[in-house]
């Protein structure tokens, strides 16, 4: 492997790593005491169910502004002493260096911060104030500082109160690889950064996962589908040194790759098959979804991929495909509620595009600056509307009619599909498609700042021209003042956020948690990167290598870091419960799509067809009727598709936004009301109910049972091994086979003693041996589907 070293630059990033992991967590530290008396929750405003943070034993030797101080200032002080001028108290702002060090008070005789002199720093005296009228943060804020945090602030001032700008708004700087003790462990650059951090923590990476575990994880991560038995066998028997890499390459070239990546992109794009409000009419946006799949499979570079979606229509000589891609910004919800005031909702759609773009591509909570200046980040309300104005030229309606395809739209014919849009899988029954796209055909519409963010309160004194938050990167005259200019600005080399946010989200997809765990917030309130230098190295490399997504994914899955086992000792679990250091692989749950797709794939029911109109597989009866208005023709009743549409991959499942597919929501799919870049990870009894009782899972179990029973060359143990392997990708151990065999026998002879299910038992009794076997195997397979391991990768 060719990796360049530069020991000089190693020194520059060392301080970052020198900061103990535990202190990273300390910024979120909250007091919790479980004495048997009343204790108010949220004492320092932490979440009731937030991660438990352990108090560091001692203060760091060197207090760092970015890692120790700013998170405290932002979280507890910025609300009144931050970027929002409107609510700033006492003329003091702590979000800028100038403000924090400036003189305060009537006579300009006091300072919040006097470097090197905590005794004379008002900040220190006020946070230690015993008078409840004077203490900071004030009691009315429901915010408090812990003793540890107070000491940190004190020490920082003592050490000279060194100020640094927010890390995420400084462009990433070129970095060389760190020197590590065990370069043999490293497969590629990623491992150097991970390993260096582990060394500083006194930890070792874990050994490589078993081949069968590794390949299962790889298949799901890159294609969302499990490996087949043949795939497993081929990999297990391939002893060549690049056996693993060959699989990686093959999977990246498979069409399932695009489907897997698209599934995540649909969350981010708040894709739905209905308009999402009130009556929730159907819409046709699936051709856009087909484009996304195709774009991933063709590995269109990320900069183009995003530029087409934001501004495909404004590109010189734009192609039809580029215009189709702009459907991204029409995926927001649209109302058809009779009484709605048109402008109120038109404004809402522009707001949605603004927030979505900022969150997805910049990791900014821009919407917080809609009604007033941002409380935490340097984004003024005016800048919010500057960003908003990029999306405010669309000639669109706020309220639409039944069956209306809202303007702006295009019509696509079969001929066009044949010529240039081959990725659209148009069924024969349809001759042409109407599709929403972006077009700036309301050229005369002016943007004004809306007071309090309300549609009918424009401040007409000043027209707002398109611009971006200058603290991120000023929107200079070099850019056209439209969405194309915005896209150019996003991908400008010195934009500090775009590449970082993108690689972080990709990292999150492969490793479970982003290097910045708040992948939706890179602002002051967001988490700090666990491996800042790695994040920057990846960001720069991604950009320099032409925004090549497949290449980046390949680098991630080839790394030794990725290939570690997920086994964890209790010691390591205690040290790093959320696996931020990556001294092991994360044992993560399959997504809602993967869980169902796995079930269909291993039972040979999966229909591998790409794209086309969304499909309606099984869902429990009555869900649409119960909530619908009762008006005919408006998706009143869910009628499951028959035939192959019942067995398509889950990303094609019809998404009615007011009543989304229940099993997918139960397994943490977002509702698609709004842009979402990070799914929840929960474990609930409702998930157990789905796994135990979903008719589709029973159907899959039965199908697989039939298949193994028809193979007469297999004995019972063979069958169990085969089934177990199909579902979990590994061979069961002897002990497991015995247990499953016991169950098989028990369930076969079971169910005569259960009064409640007397009829079923009687029926079963009457059945012949074959159907008893089928039932027993079906139950066995259902059991295996219900094992924790079956919904886990890694």
């Amino acid at each position, binding site marked *: 492997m060719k990796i360049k070293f530069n020991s000089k630059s190693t020194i520059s990033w060392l301080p970052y790593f020198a900061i103990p992991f535990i202190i990273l967590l300390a910024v979120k530290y909250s007091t919790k005491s*479980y004495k048997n008396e*009343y*204790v*108010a*929750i*949220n004492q320092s405003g*932490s979440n*009731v169910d937030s*991660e438990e943070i352990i108090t560091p034993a001692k203060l760091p030797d060197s207090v760092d502004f970015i890692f120790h101080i700013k998170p405290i200032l932002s979280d507890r002080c910025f609300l009144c002493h931050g970027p929002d001028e409107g609510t700033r108290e006492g003329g003091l702002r702590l979000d800028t260096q100038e403000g924090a060090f400036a003189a305060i008070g009537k006579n300009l005789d006091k300072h919040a911060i006097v470097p090197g002199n905590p005794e004379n720093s008002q900040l220190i005296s006020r946070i230690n104030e015993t008078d409840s009228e004077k203490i900071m943060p004030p009691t009315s804020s429901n915010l408090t500082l812990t003793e540890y945090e107070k000491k940190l602030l004190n020490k920082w001032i003592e050490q000279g109160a060194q100020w640094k700008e927010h890390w995420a708004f400084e462009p990433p700087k070129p970095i060389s690889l760190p020197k590590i003790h065990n370069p043999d462990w490293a497969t590629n650059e990623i491992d150097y950064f991970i390993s260096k951090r582990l060394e500083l923590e006194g930890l070792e990476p874990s050994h490589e996962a078993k081949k069968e575990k590794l390949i299962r994880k790889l298949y799901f991560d890159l294609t969302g589908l499990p490996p087949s038995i043949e795939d497993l066998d081929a990999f297990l028997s391939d002893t060549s040194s690049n056996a693993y890499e060959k699989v990686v390459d093959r999977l990246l070239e498979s069409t399932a790759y695009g489907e897997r990546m698209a599934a995540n992109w649909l969350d981010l794009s708040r894709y739905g098959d209905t308009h999402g409000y*009130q*009556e*929730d009419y159907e819409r046709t946006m699936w051709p856009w979804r087909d484009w996304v799949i195709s774009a991933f499979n063709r590995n269109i570079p990320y900069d183009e991929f995003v530029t087409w979606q934001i501004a495909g229509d404004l590109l010189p000589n734009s192609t039809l495909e580029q215009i189709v891609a702009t459907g991204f910004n029409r995926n927001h*919800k649209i109302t058809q*509620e*009779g*009484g*709605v*005031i048109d402008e109120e909702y038109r404004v*809402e759609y522009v707001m949605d595009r603004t927030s979505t773009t900022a969150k997805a591509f910049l990791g900014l909570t821009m919407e*917080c600056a809609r009604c007033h200046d941002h*409380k*935490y980040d340097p984004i003024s309300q005016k800048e919010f509307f500057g960003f908003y104005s990029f999306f405010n030229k669309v000639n669109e309606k706020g309220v639409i009619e039944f069956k209306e395809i809202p303007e702006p739209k295009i019509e696509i014919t079969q001929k066009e599909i044949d010529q240039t849009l081959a990725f659209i899988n148009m069924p024969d029954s349809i001759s042409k498609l109407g599709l929403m796209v972006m077009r700036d055909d309301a050229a005369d519409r002016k943007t004004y700042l809306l007071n309090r963010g309300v549609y009918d309160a424009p401040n007409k004194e000043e027209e707002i021209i398109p611009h971006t938050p200058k603290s991120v990167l000023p929107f200079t005259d070099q850019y056209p003042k439209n969405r194309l200019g915005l896209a150019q600005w996003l991908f400008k080399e010195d934009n500090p956020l775009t590449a970082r946010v993108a690689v972080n989200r990709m990292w999150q997809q492969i490793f479970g948690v982003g290097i910045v765990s*708040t992948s*939706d917030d890179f*602002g002051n309130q*967001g988490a700090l990167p666990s491996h800042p230098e790695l994040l920057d190295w990846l960001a720069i490399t991604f950009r320099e290598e032409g925004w090549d997504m497949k290449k980046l994914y390949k680098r991630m899955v080839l790394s030794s870091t990725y290939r570690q086992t*997920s086994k964890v000792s209790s010691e390591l*679990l205690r040290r790093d419960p959320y696996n931020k250091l990556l001294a092991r692989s994360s044992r993560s749950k399959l997504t809602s799509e993967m869980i169902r797709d796995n079930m269909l794939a291993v039972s040979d029911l999966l229909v591998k067809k790409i794209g086309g109109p969304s499909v309606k597989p099984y869902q*429990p*009866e*009555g869900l649409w009727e*119960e*909530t619908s*208005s*009762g008006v005919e023709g408006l998706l009143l009743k869910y009628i499951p598709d028959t035939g192959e549409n019942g067995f398509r991959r889950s990303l094609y499942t019809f998404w009615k936004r007011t009543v*989304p597919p229940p099993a997918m929501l139960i397994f943490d799919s977002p509702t698609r009301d709004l842009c979402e870049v990070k799914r929840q990870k*929960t*474990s*609930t*009894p*409702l*998930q*157990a*109910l789905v796994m135990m*009782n*979903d008719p589709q899972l029973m159907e899959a179990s039965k199908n697989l049972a039939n298949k193994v029973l028809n193979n007469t060359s297999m004995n019972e143990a063979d069958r169990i091994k085969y089934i177990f392997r199909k579902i979990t990708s590994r061979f069961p151990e002897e002990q497991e086979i015995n*247990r499953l065999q*016991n*169950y098989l026998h*028990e369930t076969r002879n079971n*169910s005569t*003693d*259960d009064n*409640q*299910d007397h009829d079923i038992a009687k029926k079963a009794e009457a059945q012949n041996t074959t159907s008893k076997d089928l039932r027993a195997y079906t*139950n066995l397979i259902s059991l295996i589907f*219900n*094992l*924790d*391991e079956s919904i886990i990768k890694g």
Partner: protein
Amino acid sequence: MDEITKHFLNNNRRQFIKKMGVGLGGLAVASMIDPLSLAGGHKSVAQNILPAKALHFAPKAKRVIYLFQSGGPSQLELFDYKPLLSKMRGEDLPDSVRQGQRLTGMTAGQDRFPLVGSQFKFDQYGQSRAWVSELMPHTAKIVDDLCFVKSVHTEAINHDPAITFFQTGSQQTGRPSMGSWFSYGLGSLNDNLPTFSVLLSRGTGRPVAQPLYSRLWGNGFLSSLHQGVQFRSGKDPVLYLKNPEGISKTDRRLMLDHISELNMKQEAEFGDPEIGSRVAQYEMAYRMQTSVPETMNVEDEPDYIFDMYGEDSRRPGTYAANCLLARRLAERDVRFIQLYHMGWDQHGDLPGDITNQSKDVDQATAALIQDLKQRGLLDDTLVIWGGEFGRTNYCQGTMTQTNYGRDHHPKCFTMFMAGGGVKPGFTYGETDDFGYNVTRDPVHVHDIQATIMHQMGIDHTKLTYKHQGRRFRLTDVSGHVVQDILT
């Protein structure tokens, strides 16, 4: 001993002991779960009884039954008696009364806004002398148990944003529902049933009703552990609850025992505490398979109870049947019970439609409150009745001698509450003689939410969830507890 400690000692210790006796695996599972898994996973029995959970002061109510009247019931036909409107029938709403209030797209185009009074007779009832119309005869009989708030007002003028506002504190989607906030803040009192249970019914007032959306009982950005769980009539009362054909209860138990053993083996090998959490979820699911049908099975209810709730209560899926289920859920200490009854959106044909719609709910609502009372449950159960907005004092569409309609009205409407530490036999707030504006003691949607939280022991300004850097709360940035209606 302070009040809070006393409260806990009285309630939780008893419950803790009771619960630890529950069914198979309860104890085993509780002791098996690694504390680490609790952060994101299942809250064990042991953790739920910790006094800290989210109480800021001793609660008056342990549980809430929210009878949401979806569509916007007309306060003018039900509770807010305005004889002036009948006197001025057909005359235009004076501009001095409207004061530029924005109108929905449905009546904004009308060239006239003719006032119309209720076609239904009003009278005063009980010792409290509360005004109730003839549409609500059963409710009229229990007014001395009710607390009417006549001065509720909202900001939204259309259904989707208005219901979303009531349920989540924001007109735009994405925030957690009220029930989810309670689940998050207070945890469960019952380890066999969902903390936040939802029941839907369709009114007879308007066959084509305004729709509902499942996000109304969604968890928003809170963990999906806190989502509302719909209880439905029919063979699968909770989605995916019933064992598939061919799997008996014995089979299921057997299967779970094997699953648990095999999973624990994995945990021993991989050390992942999530596995233990998953085992606990399976046990909860298994318990729900018994507890939910047991709760839904009303066969053991005596006839006099059905008589009390009305004939409809024998028909699963009706509002009356749901009220009876609400009582059964309350008896089992389900924390937040949310009913939705659709069909109050009476833009036209109001007199006929509201007559039917009122019949749906009048008797059953009154029965529920009396039933809770006779079982000693009303004291610590807060019952709330109300819609997302009120209706206009002027007619929408054609007005004849016997027919008229009303559009949405956000400026004033009536809700009532019972039990849970609100003043019985009390009326709060006043509207003007036109029934258009609040003249005394306005109560905003956020005030209602703050008050409900207060009765449950939560300071609405303190129960927050930090999401994307901001601390969100149910009441957004406003809300005041309406102290005047509290005992």
